[in-house]
């Protein structure tokens, strides 16, 4: 997969999925942690900004090399750790994190959103694999 294809087929769809899940996460976490808080219009930009941070490891983690199953799992774990560090660091620097409860909420938010994204991507690949298997019946020489 060339870098351009990688950006179009993986990174950009991931970005928009992240935006969606971040909106849901902010709504959920906000209602639990600070239900009475009022924010200005700027808050609308935060999912877009955090999603950009979220895809940074993807943008710079591109490799033409084909990893084995084990290497891929290790790469995904490193990816998750980098993501947690980037988002927590950014949030702290911007003053979003004011206490440890918020840090823990963001940490779990990242883990859950990353997990959901992986499941969605896996389901897409599973559906493609099913379509390919169905198509193979055309070539069956034992029927």
């Amino acid at each position: 997969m060339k870098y351009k294809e990688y950006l179009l087929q993986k990174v950009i769809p991931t970005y928009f999925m992240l935006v969606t899940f971040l909106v849901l996460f902010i709504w959920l976490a906000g209602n639990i942690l600070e239900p009475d808080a009022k924010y200005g219009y700027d808050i609308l930009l935060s999912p877009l900004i955090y999603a950009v941070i979220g895809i940074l490891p993807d943008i710079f983690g591109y490799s033409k090399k084909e990893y084995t199953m084990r290497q891929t799992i290790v790469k995904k774990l490193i990816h998750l750790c980098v993501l947690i560090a980037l988002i927590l660091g950014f949030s702290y620097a911007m003053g979003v994190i004011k206490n440890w409860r918020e840090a823990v909420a963001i940490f779990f938010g990242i883990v859950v959103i990353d997990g959901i994204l992986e499941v969605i991507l896996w389901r897409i690949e599973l559906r493609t694999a099913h379509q390919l298997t169905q198509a193979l019946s055309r070539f069956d020489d034992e029927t």
Partner: protein
Amino acid sequence: MKTEVHRVKEKKDEKVTIECVELTEDVREILVFIQSKGHEITGMLDGTYTQLLLSDIFYFEALDEHVFAYTKDQVYEIRSRLYEVEERYQDIYFLRISKSIVVNLRKIQTITPALNARFTAHLKNGEQLIVSRQYVKQLKKTLLGGQKNEV
């Protein structure tokens, strides 16, 4: 569809004739199947040369400048290069799925996802082959895009 079988005396006189109103996909499938049945390739096993039917070959693999043909339970060395095998037999459903493997699509039982945008092809003899990320696009095009109907 009506079928007729007439016996002939000589092997060289054997032929299959298809009479159809239109060359539909089904007819093309039959045609390609018959053509592949007739294809043979020379393989070497334990110093002995053998004629192999392409329809018996599960996949070809290139290893250290040598190319091997894998049947259900034997491995034969063949004289061709992998790219020659790929070019020569692509019309009868042999497709490259990684740098070193050309697989017979009719020998794949199922396809499942592997991580990292790759797939695993489960063959009818129980073997599993990885469809490299680089070749997934061509596999989709061949299986889902109807690219193999030109004969």
